[in-house]
């Protein structure tokens, strides 16, 4: 029998539908693979083996009974630990929520369960999604399956590593400034940040409410589209959720696979998101991709987004401001850990302070302090107020660009996966890594990262970012699937087929311990 862990969700769907494989078999194969390699990768913070097998058996029984099931029924999925799950701890990678099991499911989790997918477990992340490397997880970093000495990206490094090391065909991520797209880029997988409001945030532990968006993490564009169709659409529990009816993303992705799908597509290259500060091999693969696009009949147009220059500065005011308020609820009163002060009286204020001191890691504290400062009376206009104005300017840059082009492209990240510790002592260097992905969050437009090759100098994956106008997620899937097919045709294989085969826990001795 084929190794089912190597199959895409779309392929598994066919095998499950014609019952040549059972969900229990597929689920067990993935669980076994997790058991074999995740001590080294550390993509998962929690694996729900028994529950997953039980759910898979139920789906098999329903299929046997002739129940109408969705295309992804019976397929395993990994869930980022930022999402509330009834039956699994949900810690957002933080000590302060250690062991916390929510009394409810996030809307996207509920939709995934209702569609018959099999939750395998919860994936690692930077604490409260603050970071680009998973090094800020309170539970130890995740290792990049391409090179265990390197970061898997962040904050959603766990989901990207799980998918790219074949521990799960699908995963859920969340993207506030690139936390889905940058990990996808550095692990050779596919990640999509939907239009703001396209996917419910209810039950997603908030980092920055006006920027956060939940989205799919997969190995192919079609798989991402299939998962998007499951999780997307209006949710009355999220007031910022759009009430639009959405076309099928999977249908759009399939349309992208037709011959000549790229002919006449106007592709905008953002001048400000290439060149200086970009790794040579990243720029090289980007230039080659543009040449292929041109050859496929796409029209390449250079566009300028002059205000993108201020995106990082604005982002690192808006995000900490919102986060400082969103994270105020972690106070030991109703949930999470409680830490009493070492000495002195036990007042509620002092217990809150001691809990937050012990429960939050250094990056979280840094951003809470930044945000508290930015919102302070007398500074609000200069910082938060100005940042909101920049945000409007960036939205206008997008609007102007989209009058000329159908999609915008850039490298997903300025570099390939960097080594652990490389940027830990320099927060600014870490923040600058998000220069490519942040504008989409500030403007609310959808963005996708898909593999566009390996950088010649280090042999590590490079990602292509595609962005579309707000609510035009379907266009993203159509163009994304076409580009993916074009690139794979030029290579003669998928990018992940070049990833090192991970032997069971023999690459090195993990210092992080098993989950």
């Amino acid at each position, binding site marked *: 029998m084929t190794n089912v862990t190597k199959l895409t969700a779309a392929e598994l769907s066919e095998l499950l539908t014609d019952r040549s494989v059972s969900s229990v078999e597929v689920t067990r194969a993935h669980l076994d693979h997790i058991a074999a390699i995740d001590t080294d990768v550390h993509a998962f913070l929690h694996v729900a083996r028994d529950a997953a097998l039980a759910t898979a058996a139920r789906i098999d029984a329903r299929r046997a009974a002739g129940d109408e099931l969705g295309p992804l029924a019976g397929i395993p999925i990994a869930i980022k630990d930022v*999402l*509330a799950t009834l039956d699994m701890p*949900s810690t*957002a990678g933080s000590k302060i*929520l250690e062991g*916390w099991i*929510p*009394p*409810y499911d*996030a809307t996207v989790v509920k939709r995934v369960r209702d569609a018959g997918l099999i939750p395998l477990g919860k994936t690692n992340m930077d604490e409260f999604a603050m970071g680009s490397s998973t090094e800020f997880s309170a539970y130890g970093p995740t290792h990049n399956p391409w090179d265990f000495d390197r970061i898997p990206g962040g904050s959603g490094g766990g989901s990207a590593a799980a998918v790219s090391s074949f521990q799960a065909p699908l995963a859920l991520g969340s993207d506030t400034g690139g936390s889905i797209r940058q990990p996808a880029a550095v692990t050779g997988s596919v990640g999509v940040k939907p239009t703001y409001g396209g996917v419910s*945030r*209810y*039950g*997603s*532990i*908030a980092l*920055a*409410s*006006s920027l956060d968006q939940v989205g799919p993490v997969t190995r192919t564009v079609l798989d991402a589209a299939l998962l998007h169709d499951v999780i997307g659409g209006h949710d*009355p*529990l*999220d*007031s*910022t959720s759009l009430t639009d009816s959405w076309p099928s993303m999977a249908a759009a992705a399939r349309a992208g696979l037709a011959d000549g799908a790229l002919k006449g597509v106007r592709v905008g290259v953002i001048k400000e998101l290439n060149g200086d500060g970009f790794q040579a091999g990243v720029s090289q693969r980007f230039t080659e991709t543009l040449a292929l696009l041109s050859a496929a009949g796409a029209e390449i147009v250079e566009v300028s987004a002059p205000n993108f220059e201020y995106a990082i500065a604005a982002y690192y005011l808006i995000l900490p*401001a*919102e986060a*400082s*308020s969103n994270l*105020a*609820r*972690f*106070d030991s*009163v*109703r*949930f999470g850990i409680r830490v009493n002060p070492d000495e002195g009286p036990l007042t*509620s*204020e002092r217990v*809150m302070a001691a809990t937050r001191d012990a429960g939050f890691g250094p990056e979280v504290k840094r951003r809470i302090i930044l945000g*508290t400062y930015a*919102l*302070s*009376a007398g500074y*609000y206009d200069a910082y*938060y107020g100005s940042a909101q104005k920049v945000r409007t300017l960036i939205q206008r840059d997008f609007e102007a660009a989209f009058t000329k082009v159908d999609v915008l492209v850039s490298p997903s990240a300025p570099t390939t996966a960097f080594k652990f510790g490389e940027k830990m002592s320099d927060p600014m260097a870490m923040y600058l890594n998000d220069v490519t992905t942040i504008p989409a969050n500030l403007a609310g437009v959808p963005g996708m990262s898909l593999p566009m090759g390996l950088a010649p100098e280090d042999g590590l994956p490079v990602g292509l970012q595609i962005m579309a106008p707000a609510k035009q997620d379907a266009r993203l899937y159509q163009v994304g699937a076409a580009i993916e097919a074009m690139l794979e045709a030029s290579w003669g294989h998928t990018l992940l087929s070049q990833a090192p085969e991970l032997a069971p826990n023999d690459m090195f001795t993990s210092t992080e311990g098993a989950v």
Partner: protein
Amino acid sequence: MKKAELMDYDKALELFEPVLGFEVHVELNTKTKMFCGCANEFGQGANTNTCPTCLGLPGGLPQVNAQAIESSIRLGLALGCEIAEYSRFARKNYFYPDTAKNFQTSQYDEPIAFNGQLTIELESGRLVTVDIERAHMEDDAGKLTHVGGATGRIQGADYSLVDYNRGGVPLVEIVTQMIEGGEADSPEIGRTYVAAIREIVKALGVSNARMEEGNVRCDANVSLRPRGSNILGTRTETKNVNSLRSVEKAVRYEIQRQAALLQAGGTITQETRHWHEDTGITSAGRPKSDADDYRYFPEPDLVPVAPSREWVEELRATLPEPPAARRKRLQADWGFADLEFQDVVNSDLMDAVEATIAAGASAQAARKWWTGEVARLANVAGVSADSLVQPDQVAALIELVVAGTLTDRLARQVLEGVINGEGTPLEVVEFRGLAVVSDDGALIVAIDEALAAQPDVLAKIRDGKVQAAGAVIGAVMKAMRGQADAARVRELVLERAGSADGSAE
């Protein structure tokens, strides 16, 4: 807490001019909470009306209650406010265990209603117009119970319990502009203003308006300006004064306290103060400076509220008659003297009296029964009069009295029966057999027996000492178990005594 020095009230006013400001919180009576689907109910088991959103659990998100928006707009309109075309919620950030999210979802620079006016009438007939700065929407905090310690406050408590059932209940906070020129009437202005707000929200039906349950809560700001100065004094904010009388007393107390302190060369600390109902004093709460930084910013989890002008006009058309105008109209219609009408208003019985009159009773009878016997029984039972008995029952009772079926005394017994749930007044009359005996034959038998039993009295009556008849009347009433009309009995006694031919001897 130590008792503060107070200055004589008249002396205080001679030296200082009081400046007031009020923040009144109105709890809306929506079915569900402001930002989630939990029931908005009073008196449920602790933390039963809660969900991830109002508990502030990670991942919880707010959804705006449309009914609360509608109620807020109607309240704003009733206060003469403009309604914002574009209004936003904001987060007011502060840490306190009763605030689940550690921020309150409120409104800051973009309130739903602003620039209103409310004219109130004092007992002297003086009209005072209070300018309303704004009326904004927000969610209520949970309820803390401090266990242990002497004062029931958080300081010194062993531990505290939190009930989040109230957390997320919709509030409208009505903020006045500075009220100057109140002078000696200042305390009464406070009471009358809060009473007017309470009356308005009740008439609108947007709140249960029970101050004792905290549906309407008043924070009273008081400062004193030395005569001849144009510089405002430092203010104090006395929190949660929860009865009309207390608002009046608290304002008066702060005027006297601050005057004494200022006169002695002291300074007023800008702070919140607690009102103590039992001792009638205020005590220092927490310092509150204008520099208190709540780090307000627009709530990113909610979209702006932009009520269409058409909707606002539709809502304006649903506004009831303003309570003050209604009072004037009803007093004229009913022909009540000022004191009679005040009695009805102060007992909160206007609706009940109106309904009773509508059910056919005369205005005076309705007033007499509600403010008299019904209010007395309600007082004994410790409930409000209008919750004790329905207006149509009172009207039916009055009808029986007018028809002569019941005397006032019997009617009081029937009222007790109605309140006990024995049925309508007519059913109680039948059940208890309480109707007046109007059959002269039965009365005459009883009278003749009584006259025969008291021959000396009979003699006196015949001698023209009519007042002696009282003894016979009493005996007859006793024999009839009270169910006779005493006036008729008296008539008949005199008649029988005069016509008696001595055959009884």
